Each structure stands twice: as C-alpha cells, then as structure tokens.
C-alpha cells in the first residue's frame, strides 16, 4: 500500500515552568534546541548532545531527563521544569542555595543540569529508590542513607569537566539534609493535626 509522505513538522504546545508555549516544530527538533533556539531559555546547556554528559538535564513530569534525546514533539502534554523554573520567585531552591554556599561549580556550564538532577535525586531518595551503590536493594532493608557514595552514584549522569565533584557532593548532601528536615517537620505537623481532629 502506497502511503503519502508524512508531514515532517507539527504545531505543539509545550508546558514549561507552568507557562504554555505554542510553536511549530520540525520533528527533528530536540527539546533542548526548542528551549534554547526557539524559546530563548538558554539556562539549559548543550554539552555532548548525545545523552552522555547531563548538561541538558531538565525535569519532565517531575522526573529528570536529558533534553538532547527528547524530541520536542514528544514532550507535548508533559510538565517541563528547567533551571529557570526551579526557584520560587526570588526564593532560591535549597539545592541552588547549597551550590552557592558550598561552591558546587567552577566554570558553571554543567551547573543547571547538576542542579536539576540533584533536585530529582533528593525526590528519588525520599521515595525510597535504591541505587547501584545500595548494598541491599530489598524493600525490607529500608531506604539507604544518602552517603557521599550514594550521592556520587546517583549524580553520575552529570559530568563536570572542571572536576568540582567534591563540592557538588557536599552541596547535594546539605540540600538533602534540609529537605529531610523539612519533610520531618511537615510530617510532625500532619500528625498534630490528626491528633487535634481526633
């Protein structure tokens, strides 16, 4: 059966940092190129463009992904968060603040990807996901403590050619501690509410 050649471009609406952006994309356009070249959101960086360096890491439906291997047309209908959308207004995200406080970078090129990745690492760990550094992956063993070894493994998809890894690991650890404390406080508050209701 002979088929007509398919259209090679589509009109899409991308939901980025809570805002909708309508544009027509050639299907070959990656999410990375759409962000940088079409929407002037240059915070997301292009490193290898082959899924090997993590510089283009963004969150898709709250999970980290590399934008260089995500087709823009395939990202339609998903909730995309880039480095431009990580902070709450002027209030930096705990991961951003920790990178600043602890010098989690040198040249800064990989930093947006490192930060997006770290935000997701903290969520993944809080959800109880094991990693390749986890000795016992069985659920009965409980969630592994977020040791420097766990952080290095979980962040291994983000390369830093300056070699700022020592500070990056410290920054992720500090942000994770702050996050765990906030979660514990929230849980305690929740328990108090339940107590009051009962």
């Amino acid at each position, binding site marked *: *059966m002979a*088929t007509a*050649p*398919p*259209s*090679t471009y*589509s009109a899409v609406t991308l939901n980025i940092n809570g805002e909708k952006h309508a544009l027509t994309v*050639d*299907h*070959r356009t*990656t999410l990375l190129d759409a962000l940088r070249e079409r929407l002037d959101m240059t915070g997301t960086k292009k490193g290898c*463009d*082959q*899924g090997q360096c*993590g510089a283009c*890491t963004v969150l*898709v439906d709250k*999970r*980290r*992904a*590399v934008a260089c*291997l*995500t*087709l823009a*047309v*395939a990202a339609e209908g998903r909730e995309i968060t880039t480095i431009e959308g990580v902070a709450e207004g002027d209030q930096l995200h705990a991961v951003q603040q920790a990178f600043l406080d602890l010098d989690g970078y040198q040249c800064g090129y990989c930093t947006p990807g490192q930060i997006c*990745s770290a935000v*997701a*690492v903290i969520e*993944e760990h809080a*959800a*109880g*996901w*094991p*990693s*390749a550094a*986890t000795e016992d*992956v*069985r*659920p*009965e063993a409980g969630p592994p403590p977020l040791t420097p070894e766990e952080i*290095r*493994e*979980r*962040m*291994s*998809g*983000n390369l830093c050619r300056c070699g700022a890894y020592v500070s990056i690991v410290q920054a992720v650890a500090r942000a994770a501690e702050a996050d765990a404390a906030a979660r514990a406080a929230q849980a305690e508050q929740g328990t108090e509410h339940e107590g009051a209701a009962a």
Partner: protein
Amino acid sequence: MKEFGYQRALDVSGALALLDADPDARFLGGGTNLVDLMKTGVERPGRLVDVRELPLDRIETTEDGGLRIGATVSNSDLAAHPDVRRRYPALTQAVLAGASGQLRNMATVGGNLLQRTRCGYFADVTKPCNKRDPGSGCPAIKGEHHNHAILGASDHCVATHPSDLGVALTAFDAVVTYETADGPGELPLADFYLPVGDTPHLETALPQGALITGVVLPPAPVAANSRYRKVRERASYAFAIGSIAAALDVQDGVVREVRLAFGAVASRPWRARAAEAALLGGPVDAAAFAAAADAELAAARPLPHNGYKVTLMRNLVVAVLSELAEEAAR
C-alpha cells in the same frame, strides 16, 4: 538527520496499524538509543510512532506467582518496584547498573531489549559494518575490539549486546510478549535474539511490524537469592566490559538450583547453561565454581585484544557465586 513524520499511538491496535501502513516507520519508546542513532545517521526512519503513552505501563503478579512487566514501564519504575526488589533483586541491580538516572527515567523495557550495539564501527557511518550495511565487512575483527564478543560471534560480526536488564531477564527465563496485526505471540528471551552467523543485521526473531507488549517472568524462588555484578572502565555510568547475573539455592551443602547469565561477552545476553549443568548437585566451593566457569568458557574464542574477558568472567563467576553461597548459608 533525515526528516520524519511523527504520530503518537494511544492504543496497541492503533500503533500496529500506523506501523503496518508505512514500511519506513519505527516505534519510538524513550528515544535514548533511537534518537541518538538518528542524529548520527545510523537509523533513518521516515516516520516515528510514539508508543510511550500506550497502556503497557504496569507491573503485575501473574496467576502462577510470576511477574508481568509492561513494555512501556520505565527502567526507573522497574528497578524501584517492591516485588522486583524482593523477588528478583538481581533484576533491580542490573537496571540500576545501566546508564544514568536521567536515561533510566526515559528508557522503556521494550526499548531496552531492542537497543543496538555500542560497537564504535556500527555507530560510525563512514566505516564499514556488516550489521549496519550488510556485506561491507567488519573492521572490528582486526581493529578496535577490546570490548567485543568472546562467545557466539562469527567472522562477520563480533559486536556485543549492551543491555544489563536483558542479562538478568535471561537468567530468570523471561518470555517476551508481542502483538502483531495478525494477533499476539511470545518468545522466550533465550530465543529472542538470533545467532550472528552471516546475518548480523538480523537481530531478533520478532515478526516484521510486531510491537513488544511486555515481559513475563515465571515464578523463580531461587531468584530471591540473586545478584548482578557489572565490571566497567569507570565507577559508574558506563557500559560493561563484563557482567553476570546469578542466583543460587543450596541444600545440604550441594547446589540445588542455579542460574547464570553473562553480559558484554556476546551478541545477546548469554545464558551459561554449561556452567549451570556443571554446578547442579555439586559442592559449594570456589574450586567447583571455577570449574563450572571453565566449562562455559571453553567455547570462548577471544580476539587478540579481548582475551582478558575470559579471566574476568571466570573471576566474576567465582566471586558472585561465593557471595551467594554465603547468603544462602545465613
């Protein structure tokens, strides 16, 4: 990159119809391998049928107590699933040993099984390659092959299959299920990948136009005591130079059941049946483990620069089985 059409499939029959209508169409899962290969010109589809939103994203216990894993389940969700971690821990370890957190979120189970080799000649369209361009030759045999196959290769191709997940699935007798326009079918993973022979471009026994719908793991109590160990050239985020999935059950000091599969040594995940046969009913000690590894590796045909893999795999068998024996004794 060549221009292409794009459509998103919402149900399996729709996906099959779209593929059936265009011989130049390909299914798109997470895209972590396909999109990369399209950029370099190795893959040149005229149309992509996006199957990521098909309702094949569940992990369920089967009636007989095994697991059914949907084809679009992400690698991350597979690794994190409590039943996988509890009943098939080597499967979780295998998935977590592969790629990065970002790529595991994107990559699907079906796509993982269909990913292409990472042989440098295959990836470089300016070089000959029998897998990419049948009949053009294999430069790896006399060239860069330190991470190529030692088992089951041929004079036409010595590329390895890069999947970690597939190695654990092979050890646990997984069955691949698929749909075609003519109805459903299934293939044990052991028969899923074709022998290399003189047709390295023909990689799987999937019928033309078939869509992988999932993978079924039969119940395997032995898998509760299992482990995946991967050796690579850096600590994380690299393909294996050798890997092993193993499970062991010991009773009264003898091997009651054992599963062994090797990765990064052949064109497919390699089930080490000769080693398993040598171990079954035998003693639980390092000498027996080494003898079993030797029984499997007797068939190895290393090239000038990858002979180290024979020693590596032998050491991996001894190390991992020894650890599992210790676990079993607890």
